[in-house]
């Protein structure tokens, strides 16, 4: 318990101290301090993992209550931490990759005036993410969940003077709030039925529950809604592409390696619930597969180096959800891990490129950079090979596990989509690679000024590149490590890694290789420009991300705005009604006042009227006049 709290609290301390002593700290200190704290966290995480590993396989859970959160009647919820092999994997990746990206950022952000703020945000993000994965119940998870969203909001909008960044941040936040509300509703639903939302408590109940009731479908779906928003599954995916407005290390850490995979964490964490909700489970896989191929198609024609990577992230997240959907939980986590390595590498390398080109992100301005930045190019290449699924790089193993399991479990359509997507991935990734590093420089001036990044940036990239190469070999270790987590409860019989049929592997790798050659032929041999094909129908649509933004605007944003305007009209009516009522009474009074004419005889007449009326009334009452 205690070390968990330390792991958790160190980055928060970093964020706090950097914020509080912003004016006092030397200019370079925040970066170093923040990186140091995350690194310590990483070391502590390794230690914690080791201790966890020393426990008996079926008791590999460390849990404890920090203090009460809500008590009374109604909900009784505690601040509970929960540490098991699944959390442990996430913990390592978050602190490990996080530390590397912190270090990288020292170089990347060194001339930005908001450097201190940046590291405070980053540290805050690490804290939030750790809270998310260490949470012992859904409510605390939701707190971490929302805080990472907040950190993401801060970092996307880091350059707040850019309107596009600000808009992207808002979009990300609002869409994620939609997901948060899904989790909120889902966990409240679970609480209402089971009077508790601690994992252990829920899992014990899920163990014995019979699958298929609407209640399980609804609660699973609502929780999946959260995962969908956070992990940018179709149709809540647009924010992720816009999120590239943030600094590149942010894209690497948050929008590729860690935060966006929180959905995968949630789904794997809640795998016993998914067993009980077969329809939702299928839906997850289907949407994952669709997202994978859909995002891959968009990546084909993107002009911005980070946009390509963003859509490729979307696509890979689709893979992970495909894994969840077919019950390949370990494979999903495995792919998360390898993806963290190679996608972080890609982003950081892209960051180095952007850094070298003074902030230029347009592929149309790049080309031939391999001469200037060999280390970056090498790392990028390794990661590209990994993501393309070329053996023996990391991505090959995890993707193979997912596809194999999809095939084995009979999800042939999903398998086919996955295979196709693998080929597409290979194509657009190599397109990106060739356009960036090969061919003729398309902007001589930028090319002349380009240079290899400083060591503080290059070293993390290279380390991550190495992991992209060797990451695949962690598979069997992971299989063993996670098996207690997935076997502790029922319904995880499909969880361990499996191998698919040989022909599947052949087809997948073959497609990837073919795609490689196509890309080489197009962009190196023929040297066509990145803009090619984006003016006509399919390419244009893909470039515009199939018009999803416009669709959302038309379906959700504008109607809400119209409703808001309608409410304002109603509001004016209500306010006018209030004023009108008051004025009406006032006017009525003013109209009534002239009855008082000032003529005595009128007054006497009024009295006489009263006399007659009262006489008549009394005589009626006593029955004289009937």
């Amino acid at each position, binding site marked *: 318990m205690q070390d968990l709290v330390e792991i958790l609290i160190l980055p928060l301390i970093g964020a706090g101290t950097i914020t509080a002593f912003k004016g006092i700290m030397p200019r370079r200190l925040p970066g170093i301090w923040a990186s140091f704290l995350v690194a310590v966290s990483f070391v502590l995480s390794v230690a914690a993992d080791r201790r966890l590993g020393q426990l008996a396989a079926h008791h590999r859970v460390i849990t404890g209550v920090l203090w009460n959160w809500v008590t009374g009647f109604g909900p009784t919820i505690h601040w509970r931490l929960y540490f098991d092999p699944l959390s442990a994997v996430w913990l390592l990746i978050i602190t490990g990759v996080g530390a590397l990206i912190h270090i990288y950022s020292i170089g990347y952000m060194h001339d930005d005036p908001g450097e201190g703020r940046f590291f405070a945000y980053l540290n805050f993000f690490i804290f939030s993410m750790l809270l998310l994965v260490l949470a012992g119940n859904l409510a605390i998870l939701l707190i971490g969940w929302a805080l990472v969203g907040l950190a993401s909001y801060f970092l996307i909008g880091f350059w707040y003077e850019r309107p596009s960044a600000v808009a992207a941040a808002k979009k990300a936040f609002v869409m994620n709030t939609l997901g948060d509300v899904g989790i*909120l509703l889902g966990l409240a639903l679970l609480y209402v039925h089971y009077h508790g939302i601690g994992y252990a408590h829920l899992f014990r109940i899920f163990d014995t529950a019979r699958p298929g009731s609407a209640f399980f479908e609804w609660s699973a779906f609502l929780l999946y809604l959260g995962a969908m928003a956070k992990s940018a599954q179709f149709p809540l995916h647009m924010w992720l592409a816009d999120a590239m407005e943030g600094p590149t290390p942010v894209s690497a850490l948050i929008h590729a390696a860690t935060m966006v995979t929180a959905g995968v964490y949630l789904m794997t964490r809640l795998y016993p619930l998914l067993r009980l909700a077969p329809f939702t489970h299928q839906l997850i896989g289907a949407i994952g597969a669709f997202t994978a191929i859909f995002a891959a198609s968009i990546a084909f024609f993107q002009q911005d180096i980070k946009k390509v990577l963003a859509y490729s992230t979307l696509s890979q997240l689709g893979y992970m959800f495909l894994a969840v959907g077919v019950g390949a939980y370990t494979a999903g986590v495995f792919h998360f891990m390898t993806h963290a390595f190679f996608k972080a590498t890609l982003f950081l390398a892209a960051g180095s490129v952007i850094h070298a080109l003074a902030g230029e992100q347009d592929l149309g301005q790049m080309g031939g950079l391999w001469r200037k930045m060999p280390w970056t190019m090498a790392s990028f290449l390794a990661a590209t090979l990994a993501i393309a699924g070329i053996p023996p790089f990391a991505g090959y193993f995890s993707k193979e596990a997912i596809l194999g399991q999809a095939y084995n479990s009979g999800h042939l359509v999903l398998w086919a989509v996955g295979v196709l997507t693998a080929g597409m991935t290979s194509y657009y990734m190599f397109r990106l690679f060739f356009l960036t590093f090969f061919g003729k420089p398309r902007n001589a001036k930028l090319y002349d000024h380009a240079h290899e990044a400083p060591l503080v940036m290059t070293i993390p990239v290279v380390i991550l590149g190495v992991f992209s190469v060797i990451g695949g070999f962690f598979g069997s270790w992971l299989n063993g490590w996670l098996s207690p987590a997935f076997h502790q409860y029922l319904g995880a019989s499909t969880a361990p890694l499996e191998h698919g049929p040989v022909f599947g592997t052949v087809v997948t790798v073959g497609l990837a290789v073919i795609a490689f050659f196509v890309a080489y032929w197009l962009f190196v041999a023929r040297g066509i420009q990145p803009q090619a094909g984006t003016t006509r129908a399919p390419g244009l649509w893909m470039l515009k991300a199939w018009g999803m933004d416009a669709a959302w605007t038309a379906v959700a944003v504008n109607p809400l705005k119209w409703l808001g305007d309608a409410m304002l009209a109603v509001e004016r009516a209500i306010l006018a009604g209030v004023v009108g009522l008051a004025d009406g009474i006032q006017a009525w009074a003013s109209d009534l006042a002239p009855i008082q004419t000032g003529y005595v005889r009128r007054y006497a007449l009024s009295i006489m009227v009263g006399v007659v009326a009262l006489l008549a009334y009394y005589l009626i009452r006593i029955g004289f006049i009937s």
Partner: protein
Amino acid sequence: MFLVWLLAVPLAGAIVTLWAPAKGAKGVAAITSFVALLGYVGLLFVNRAGVNWPWIAAWGVRFHLQADGLGLFLLGLNAVLFVVAILASSEDMGRIYYFWLLVLEFAVAGLFAAVDLFVFYVFWEVLLVPVFFLLTQWSGARGRTAALKWLIMNLVGSFFMLVGIVAVAVIHHQNGGAFTFEIAALSGMAIPAGIATWLFFAFLVAFWIKAPLWPLHGWMPDTYGESPAPVTALISGVLSKAGIYGILRVMMPIFLPQFRQFQLLLLILAAIGLLYGALAALRQTDMKMVTAYGSLSHMAMMALGIFSLTEAGILGTTYYMVAHGLMVGGLFIVLGLLESRTGTRTIQDMAGLNQSAPRLAAYFLFFVLGTLGLPGLPGFVGEYMIIQGLIQSQVVFAVIAGFVLVVAAWYMLRVFQAVMQGPARSSAIRDLLARQVAWLVPLAGLVVFIGIWPAGITSHAVPSLYHVMHFASQGGGR
């Protein structure tokens, strides 16, 4: 006796303020409110004894005050926000301004402590008066209209409630009980069904207007718009809670059967208000109005919590009242600081102020996040419990509430980003002064504290709520 302290200190301070030198009035008021806050600390940690003195023996009216879990934290909210509001007020407001503020503190404290209907009603109406004069004399161009609206709309509601109060006591007496206004004695009494409905709505209208809840919020825009920022903070932060509090304190024990009977109607009305406030806030261009309509929506959320008639919903509302009070109070004060620096409230006239006033922006964002219900901050806890209650009773309203949370994120961020971010178009402004930070930090700290440890409030509120709802005997909402 700390309870009496909470009432007596502001009253005495108010009278002293009248003779204070013009420039010293703020100091006197600040010290007074701080002493009252100390009294609250004493109440919280030392002694919570109430008082029960005879008042008008012939009518069974007793000056009965009690700080139970329902009112305890609202008293704290009152004590805290008044310190902040007084500190946030300008020094050249004049002594009468501070006099009225302290009278207001006195009245609100009395309201939150009263457990006798007569006493409750007395404080309920007395608190209208200071606000009326604050609006009349220290507010914008339409302040006098706003003041009239405030007073008349609120009194219209309370006069109906007055009839209700007397009628309840008379019926209790005619049923054979003593002639008393003690809420505990009146709770659960038998009222003939036809009359009960009328009485129920007579009470409800008063609370509905005060909260305010849609569609009886007509006084709200002018009042929030015209009053000086500290007063807005107090109205939205503390006074509006009086409406919700009244429903819990007064109506729940007496009219529980009617709540069950009209539950769906009430839920629908509150849900309309919830959507209405949020959507109206979406399109406002005045940053104070965005917050005001957001607050309207949040009040509807609290009402939903009550009308869910579940333990979770009511507990959530009890908690949310305090949380929302602190956050929206802080937000209005920050908006006031912003307005005094820029001279405008229209969001189109501002942009990129973050660059010149990062601290102001940070506190602005903090309270924005709080009001939009960010998990980890207290608004979320209240909303969570309310939504859980709604799921228990009528799940469709939970979905509506969830949807509104999304819209809330949208409209609150819209304001923040429009004002603070983007390219700086307006000229630079002064950042927060150190002394302003000095009271914003504790306020923000308090918000964070109750956000991560809501159990501190909820666990204390529970016994009172049991009493309020008779849930122990009647087995909960469903």
